[in-house]
């Protein structure tokens, strides 16, 4: 095994602007590690890659200036191994660590260790991460800041009278759910006060029969909810701006498959309200660096705080394409104590961007498909961005997540972005493993997707449709 490599710089280093850091360690792997390395290269920052034994030949290792093997393949012994990561920063003299997403990116303890060791963590403080990582605390903070939360009863609803009061407070439609429930039993959707008493009683009876327990609680019922999230960027001077929203409703078991910006359904007024709310939420916790506030949006235009992600998001490229703002470079700048390089009024959404996550999985059964890539061609040409760390003959190890590439299509409008994504998928060649590209290709042809008529529940019905028509015959 080789010693820690200090490669010769690729060429005469002549950064045009002063780099915010001299050297940054990237505590991640795959496409996001490479993404951060690219940003550093653009800024004239030296990079240190860490890697597990399974990633010896990975591109993030190849393109970094220095590389340190930090452990064997299992994440717990390498990418999640805090002492190893910190030691790698120490021996290479890295001033800062970019955590990417996943792994240590939302680990408050890791942020504290960085601080204790005099290393800048590229992200918000440990305190903010803790606060937003704890669901109850996050909700309390948001409530205080006037951010709408999903309304519901405070525990069990004992009587019809109480149910009527609660429903009035949270607004119809509401859903009555069995406390012990599941699978739809003891569950009733109530549209108005008139039908509430009967449905409330039926739910209790059904719950009793099914689970031997007739206690029920109530929640607001969302009509075809959409996952809308807002990209936030803040600095250490209290400036917080939003970079517009992303629509991430195409998801399967809470795993996002397709993201876009802007959302096809927000009116300018609603967009303004959601984005302003997100900024207020971020300011309420003194947020800085990149973050995302996730909302559920009702069919009626009501939206509710779900959670905040205190790191860069997988789907950040769609925002970068429509705003022309490089989120990762901005992360590096504000982490170094610089002011945000743009103000709210400088952020303009232009055009439309869609991202498809290409996973090494069976496209319809979603079983993982690790292996060696025997042939590879990524689409190029106008409006296509590819974020990947794959290369021909690369082996996808079974130890990590299955995303092999993000295909991102940009167009002057949504129609053009869809058309480009289609042809990008048609000209993508990945042989040797199965990928989800064929699934994405079918979604791009679906009238619901084209018209924007989908919710977070859409994939379920689409999967049923696929079962009926697996060959992809024209509808």
């Amino acid at each position, binding site marked *: 095994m080789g010693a820690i490599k200090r490669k010769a710089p690729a060429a005469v280093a002549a950064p045009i602007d002063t780099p915010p850091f001299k050297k940054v360690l990237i505590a991640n792997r795959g496409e996001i590690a490479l993404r951060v390395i690219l940003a550093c290269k653009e800024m004239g920052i030296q990079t240190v890659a860490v890697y597990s034994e399974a990633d010896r030949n990975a*591109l993030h290792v*190849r393109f970094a200036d220095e590389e*340190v093997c930090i452990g*064997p393949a299992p994440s717990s012994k390498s990418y999640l191994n805090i002492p190893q990561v910190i030691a*790698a920063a*120490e021996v290479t003299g890295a001033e800062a660590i970019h955590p990417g997403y996943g792994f240590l990116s939302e680990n408050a303890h890791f942020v504290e260790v960085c601080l204790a060791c005099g290393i800048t963590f590229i992200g918000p403080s440990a305190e903010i991460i803790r606060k937003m990582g704890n669901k109850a605390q996050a909700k309390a903070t948001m409530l205080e800041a006037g951010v709408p939360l999903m309304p519901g009863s405070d525990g069990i609803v004992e009587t019809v009278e109480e149910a009527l009061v609660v429903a009035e407070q949270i607004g119809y439609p509401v859903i009555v759910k069995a406390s012990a429930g599941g699978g739809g039993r003891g569950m009733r959707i109530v549209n108005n006060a008139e039908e509430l008493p009967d449905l409330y009683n039926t739910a209790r009876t059904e719950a009793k029969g099914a689970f031997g327990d007739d206690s029920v609680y109530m929640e607001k019922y969302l009509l075809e909810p959409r996952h809308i999230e807002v990209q936030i960027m803040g600095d250490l001077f209290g400036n917080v701006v939003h970079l517009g929203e992303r629509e991430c409703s195409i998801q399967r078991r809470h795993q996002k498959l397709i993201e876009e910006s802007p959302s096809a359904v927000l009116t300018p007024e609603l967009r303004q309200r959601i984005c302003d709310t997100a900024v207020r939420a971020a300011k309420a916790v003194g947020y800085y660096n990149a973050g995302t506030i996730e909302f559920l949006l009702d069919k009626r235009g009501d939206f509710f705080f779900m959670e905040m992600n205190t790191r860069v998001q997988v789907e950040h490229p769609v925002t970068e394409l429509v705003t022309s703002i490089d989120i990762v470079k901005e992360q590096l700048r504000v982490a170094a104590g610089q002011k945000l390089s743009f103000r709210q009024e400088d952020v303009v959404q232009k055009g439309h961007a869609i991202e498809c996550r290409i996973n090494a999985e069976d496209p319809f059964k979603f079983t993982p498909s690790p292996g060696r890539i025997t042939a590879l061609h990524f689409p190029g040409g106008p409006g296509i961005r590819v974020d990947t760390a794959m290369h021909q003959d690369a082996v996808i190890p079974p130890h990590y997540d299955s995303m092999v590439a993000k295909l991102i299509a940009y167009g002057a409008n949504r129609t053009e972005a869809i058309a480009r994504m289609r042809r990008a998928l048609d000209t993508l060649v990945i042989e040797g493993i199965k990928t989800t590209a064929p699934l994405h290709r079918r979604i791009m042809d679906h009238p619901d997707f084209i018209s924007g008529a989908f919710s977070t529940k859409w994939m379920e019905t689409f999967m049923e449709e696929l079962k009926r028509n697996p060959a992809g015959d024209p509808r």
Partner: protein
Amino acid sequence: MSTSRKKSAAVKKTPAPRPASKPAAPKVPAQAVPVQAIGLEEIKSLIALVGREPFQEFEFEAGDMRFRIRKDGPAPVIQAPVAAPIVVAAPAPQVHPMPSAPPAAAQAVAAPADEPGIHYVTSPIVGTFYRASNPTATPFASPGDFVKPGQTLCIIEAMKLMNEIESDVAGEVVKVLVENGTPVEYGERLFAVRIG
């Protein structure tokens, strides 16, 4: 912080051989094999043998006979005798060029071939390597020293902590492979020890 520990990291065994980034083709020298003696049964037994061994490639040539075995791809996740990708190359340079294989890794493959009877003590952690407990002290282990399992061979400093690294074998230190005061990464070879 959960980082306080003293030599908590046990000295690991030599990690799995570095996967060849370019399929290296160990050639079996023809002259070593009595040519006439090779028939079908001999070939079969060779095949079975190669299947069990952790080779990437196996090539054989004798007189006008020649054969080649290549193991490849995602190692059989299950009971594969060897986890590493396996390749076997032919007379032709059947090298599937690894497109973006890091040159660094390729060089590393050129590490000295393991001598029989030599065991390498490798670093279980990332840090700075010290041969002695302080700059004026005698090194824990020098070439010619005989060491026992559990005997401290060096210190690796990480996160301001001094981690004593112990020998996992008994034998004679043949070589110290890292300069005093330099950084080491996980799995890096520190000492060559002749077992015995």
